[in-house]
């Protein structure tokens, strides 16, 4: 009795009792599908966060003022001279209203230095970003984020139109694709000179972006920037700091720690549900051995060895659990496809997930199928035949 025939026999046995087989597999199905879906959500979220972070630009350190007078232009000039710093850009931020036609919205107005385009990597959907030539820095031009454009009911023909920023006319030169990042606010970008002349006369800055020369240079640059700022602001302890430093790599590390913890949690759920599923399979296999005692007796009488009976029942348990794993995998992948549409991340089938899902469900079948299969194999032929 070769394995292929034993396998086919198991399949026909499972097909002959569909409801019972489905109920038996349910534990494995739920376990595997939940884990596959959760893993995909975790990976998708991580991927989404990674790409958001990547859009911020590489090797960057962002210094934000934590008080209105936390950072100023002298700091920016000094930081630009620090060893390992490739480029800097600065931002001033204020809140205001933007009006277009009959629509009016609140927005963060960000006045950016000409170098911002290199560091902030704004993703321009229509038109262009703000002018970078020195002669045009006082022009009243504005770039609006996608969400702002949507709320102001822009059309593609709106490029070149005027909007009113706190009542003052600005010409729209571009619309961004997806520059709002997290949260639900609207960002609009104007030149820093325009911002200074209109809203913020002070030399203070909201944000200094720093690009280090290389990835390796990020930690030393961060250290030097922090030392310099602590010295120049005379910060004695952390509560006095007027600024905070944000390093993209550090944030990525934090996110990885969180997703790692999530991974352990998912593994735990997977383990518990597979054990529960396995016990279900063992239970049904024991019932099945009892119900089929006479069949086992006949098979022994016509020449089946103990090992052949063992193989038959073990195969049935493994086919049941693996089939459950396969169904669970399919449901899980369908669910993650749904999540990927909702979450807006890329759907992909991870071969590792497929391999692990099927591998572990097969393992469950072996582990929990051994005992019933041994029970079947150990039956004395004469007792099995006499069994009513």
């Amino acid at each position, binding site marked *: 009795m*070769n394995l292929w025939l034993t396998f086919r*026999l198991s399949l026909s046995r499972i097909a002959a009792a569909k409801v019972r087989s489905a109920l038996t597999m349910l534990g494995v199905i739920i376990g595997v599908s939940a884990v596959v879906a959760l893993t995909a959500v975790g990976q998708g979220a991580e991927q989404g966060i990674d790409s958001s972070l990547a859009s911020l630009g590489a090797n960057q350190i962002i210094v934000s003022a934590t008080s209105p007078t936390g950072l100023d232009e002298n700091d920016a000039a000094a930081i630009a001279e620090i060893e390992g710093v490739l480029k800097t850009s600065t931002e001033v931020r204020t809140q205001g209203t933007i009006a277009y036609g009959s629509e009016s919205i609140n927005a963060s107005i960000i006045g950016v230095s000409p170098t911002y385009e290199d560091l902030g990597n704004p993703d321009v959907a229509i038109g262009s970003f703000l002018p970078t030539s020195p002669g045009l820095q006082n022009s009243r031009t504005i770039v609006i984020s996608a969400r702002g454009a949507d709320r102001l009911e822009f059309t593609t023909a709106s490029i070149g139109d005027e909007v009113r920023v706190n009542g003052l006319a600005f010409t729209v030169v571009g619309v961004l694709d997806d520059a709002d990042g997290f949260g639900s606010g609207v960002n609009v970008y104007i030149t820093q000179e325009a911002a200074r002349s209109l809203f913020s006369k002070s030399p203070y800055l909201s944000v200094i972006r720093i690009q280090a020369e290389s990835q390796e240079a990020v930690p030393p640059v961060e250290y030097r920037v922090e030392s310099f700022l602590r010295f120049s602001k005379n910060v004695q302890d952390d509560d006095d700091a007027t600024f905070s430093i944000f390093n993209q790599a550090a944030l990525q590390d934090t996110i990885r720690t969180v997703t790692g913890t999530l991974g352990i949690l998912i593994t735990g759920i997977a383990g518990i549900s597979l054990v529960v599923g396995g016990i279900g399979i063992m239970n049904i296999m024991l019932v099945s051995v009892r119900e089929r005692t006479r069949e086992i007796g*006949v*098979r022994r009488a016509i*020449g089946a060895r103990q090992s052949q009976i063992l193989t038959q029942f073990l195969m049935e348990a493994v086919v049941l659990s693996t089939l459950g794993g396969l169904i669970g995998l399919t449901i899980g992948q369908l669910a993650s496809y749904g999540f990927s549409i909702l979450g807006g991340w890329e759907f992909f089938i991870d071969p590792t997930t497929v391999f692990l899902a099927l591998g572990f469900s097969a393992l469950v079948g072996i582990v929990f199928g051994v005992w019933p299969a041994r029970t079947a194999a150990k039956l004395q032929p004469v007792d099995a035949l006499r069994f009513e």
Partner: protein
Amino acid sequence: MQLTDVRREYQTGDVPTVALAGVSLKVQRGEFVAIVGPSGSGKSTLMNLIGCLDRPSAGTVTISDKDISTLDDNELTALRSRAIGFVFQQFQLLPLTSAVENVAAPLLYQGIRPREAHKRAAAMLTRLGLGERLDFDRGRLSGGQQQRVAISRALVTNPDLVLADEPTGALDTSSGAAVMEVFKEMNAEGRTIVLITHDLEVAATAKRRVYIRDGLIERDEADAMVSTP
């Protein structure tokens, strides 16, 4: 095949039941023997011992010059597989399995390739007049047909000995008679047949009748090796 002073006792709860109280019996190659007795006489126990499905509590059972109490489970299985074919009262066809698959099963357990096993099973069924019903499962076969499938399954390994336990017990008279004809033919080919029955009419077909009662041989109409308790 020889049984010498064979005893078999069972423990049912605290009460030991004596199924065979000391039976000696010798069957030569090519004989057609009916073991006749009422239910509870120990004839099924006798069949289990001859069929290598069970071991005696005392005494020796020798099949093809091998003492079965010295064999382990795998050796007993091998002996059954090679030398003995079983026919049961309730046919005992395997579930979810077609006629030809049932007959092929003993060959497959011997390790014969599926294609070859299938071919030999089909040939055996055709010989017994079931060539048209190879792919029928047991639900679509009459009792007589099922028993012919079971006989094919017993014969397909070409065993020396065919053991039949009440082969006509679940059949109507004409199907039963047809089945007995098959046994006669098999015996004519030189195969040893041991038939267990309580039906004297069926037993009359055999060339030798061994009457058993209360675990002892009462009478042996061929007068070979009469037992003494």
